[in-house]
Structures are given as structure tokens and as C-alpha cells.
């Protein structure tokens, strides 16, 4: 295991967790993002190169939680709360106050490792596809599989498979269009 990584710009008095890898030219605003992080996976969080993890982003991972973020991704204050696997493809953009969670009543993992009755930890992985765009305050739940290039509207609630290039909005969310519709 390599020596603890301390972000040179950090104000929060902690190194990054040992099982977190942040790629070349990527930016993480602070180790504060790992305030509730309890992943014991070999790679709890892997961020690719040229990606930005900005202020207000949190990785509230349970002991089995795993997050993989690609290259050229932007997270401007999203909360990822999972004890399962979340994959975010290259060029994806997650806007302000987005929550990616195992269940609709997702919680940070408890300090003592005990589980709240509200957390259903038998959840399926979540995939946020390459070059997709998740709008502000959207909620991405277990079962969501967002196809490449799709757009999720602000505050939409998504727990289903979104085809590549679809535009999804509302609560309950539905497909309201396609990204290539207006190009011709």
C-alpha cells in the first residue's frame, strides 16, 4: 500500500483513504468528500484522468461500496451513497445536488458498522453511461442504467434502464425525447 495521499490544497485534516485512486490531472476539492466513507474494497473509489470532483461531492460508501468514475467527468456536488457498485462513464456530467443512492431512503453508513433498518443493502449496481448528463437535483436509484449520451432532466427520479440518447424528465420520470431529434 502506498503512503497516504494528502491533497496539497486541502483544509480538511485527513489524507485520502488508502483505497482511493485519483487519476492524472484530476481534481478532488477535499478529503472532506470522504467524511462518511467506509469502503473496505480493494478499490473503493477510482477516478480516471482529467475529471473534476468539486465542492459538495460526497462518497458515503458502505463496506462493500465501490465507485468507478471515468475520464473527463464532472461532479459538481453530487452525493453517492451506496454499498454496491456505481459506475460513471467518461465525459459524464453530474450537476448540483444530484443523489445517487441504493434506495429511496439512502443513508450514510453508520459509524459502528451497524445497518439502519431503512438501508436495503441487497441492491443492484447503478450505471451512468458515457457522455451522459444528469441534471440538478435528480435522484438516481438502484436499477438505473443510463445509456451513453442520455440526458436526465432536473429533479427527475430514475430507477430504470434509460436507452442511449434518451431525454428523461419528471417524477415519475419518463422519456420525453431523444438527443438527436432536432439535429436534422
Amino acid at each position: 500500500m502506498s503512503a497516504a495521499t494528502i491533497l496539497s490544497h486541502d483544509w480538511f485534516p485527513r489524507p485520502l483513504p488508502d483505497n482511493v485512486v485519483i487519476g492524472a490531472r484530476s481534481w478532488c476539492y477535499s478529503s472532506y468528500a470522504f467524511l462518511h466513507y467506509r469502503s473496505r474494497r480493494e478499490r473503493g473509489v477510482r477516478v480516471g484522468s482529467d475529471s473534476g470532483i468539486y465542492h459538495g461531492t460526497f462518497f458515503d460508501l458502505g463496506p462493500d461500496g465501490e465507485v468507478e468514475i471515468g475520464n473527463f467527468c464532472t461532479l459538481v456536488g453530487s452525493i453517492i451513497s451506496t454499498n454496491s457498485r456505481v459506475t460513471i462513464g467518461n465525459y459524464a456530467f453530474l450537476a448540483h445536488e444530484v443523489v445517487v443512492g441504493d434506495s429511496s431512503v439512502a443513508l450514510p453508513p453508520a459509524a459502528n458498522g451497524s445497518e439502519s433498518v431503512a438501508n436495503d443493502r441487497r441492491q443492484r449496481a447503478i450505471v451512468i453511461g458515457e457522455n451522459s448528463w444528469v441534471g440538478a437535483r435528480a435522484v438516481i436509484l438502484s436499477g438505473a442504467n443510463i445509456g451513453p449520451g442520455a440526458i436526465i432532466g432536473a429533479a427527475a427520479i430514475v430507477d430504470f434502464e434509460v436507452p442511449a440518447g434518451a431525454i428523461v424528465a419528471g417524477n415519475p420520470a419518463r422519456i420525453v425525447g431523444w438527443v438527436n431529434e432536432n439535429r436534422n
Partner: protein
Amino acid sequence: MSGLIGENEFKAITGGWDYAALPKNVRVGADCFLERRDSFKRFRSTREPGLTLGDRVKVYTWTEFNIEPSGAVEVGDDCTLVGAVFMCAESIRIGKRVVVSYNVTIADSDFHPHDPEQRKLDAIANAPEGDRSQRPPVIAKPVVIEDDAWIGIGAIILKGVRIGRGARVGAGAVVTKDVPAGATFAGNPARRVDAENKTP
């Protein structure tokens, strides 16, 4: 080195968290967990008490007690408040073992008048150099969330709503009407999504 932040470290980053430094009209039960001082940044209640937390209540970093001078909030034993933003002008009461997830707003008032003329006066009083004491009165209707209810990510609970015992509110729901005990509500506006007549 994963895990929640330790007490000493926590004091270091908050500039010395001290439960005694809470507003005097806040009552905190035994073994509560309050993650951040910022949860009280907009606590302005002058009621006695203005906020009551039962025993073993967990208050995570995103929770805010935005309580007006006239407001009072009560939270029962063993509740978990992850990201509950309370906007309280009169009364919000939460029972025991209630779970509130990320980015939830619970408001007992709309905080601005509906009438356009009144709203103009409100805007003037709220201007950067305005006189806030001249704000027109607002309507408040108490919110009650009963024991064992769960409130999903990003839900909004509006004034006058009573959420019954053991009810479930789905992610992103906007709740404008009472939720019966044991029922599951979702959507905007929220409606019942489980079978009716289900006994809790």
C-alpha cells in the same frame, strides 16, 4: 483510514464544537450525534424550547434547522436526519425512529404571501437594505410526521401535512396532502402508489 470522523478531529475542524454552545433553547437528549455546527446557522427561534431532540438522534452534515423566531421543532428518540432542511414558522413535530434521507425539505409555511400586492411589500422588506420587520404576515400550518415513517431522497413536505405512522414517502415526492399510516406515496404531486386498504 475510513470511518466517521473522531470527536477530537471533529473539534479541530469546527473550531471547537461544544454542545454547551448550542442556543439555550435547544434541548438535546442522551447520546445524540450532531455532525456540524452549521446545522444551526439559521436557527432563530425564541420559543422555549425552540428545538427538542430526543435520545440517540443522529443529525448529519446536510441537516439545517432554519427556524423562525415563532417556530419550534420537536424530533423524537432514535431518528436519523441525513439531509433534513427544516423551514419552520410555527411547528414541525417528528415522532420516533423516523428516517429522513438526503436533500429533504420540510416546511410548515410558504414563507411568502400568495397575494401579489402583499408579495410586493414582502420583496421591499426583504431587499438588502430593507426593513424585515415590515414583512407581511405569512400563513403557517403545523407539519406532523409520525413514528417509523421514512422520507425518501429529495422529498418536499409542505405545510399542514400529517404523515402517518410507518408511512413511506418516495424519492422526489412533493407531499401536499396527508399520508395515511402505512401508505406509500410518490410523485409530484405525491399520490398513493401502494394498494389502498393496506393495514400498517
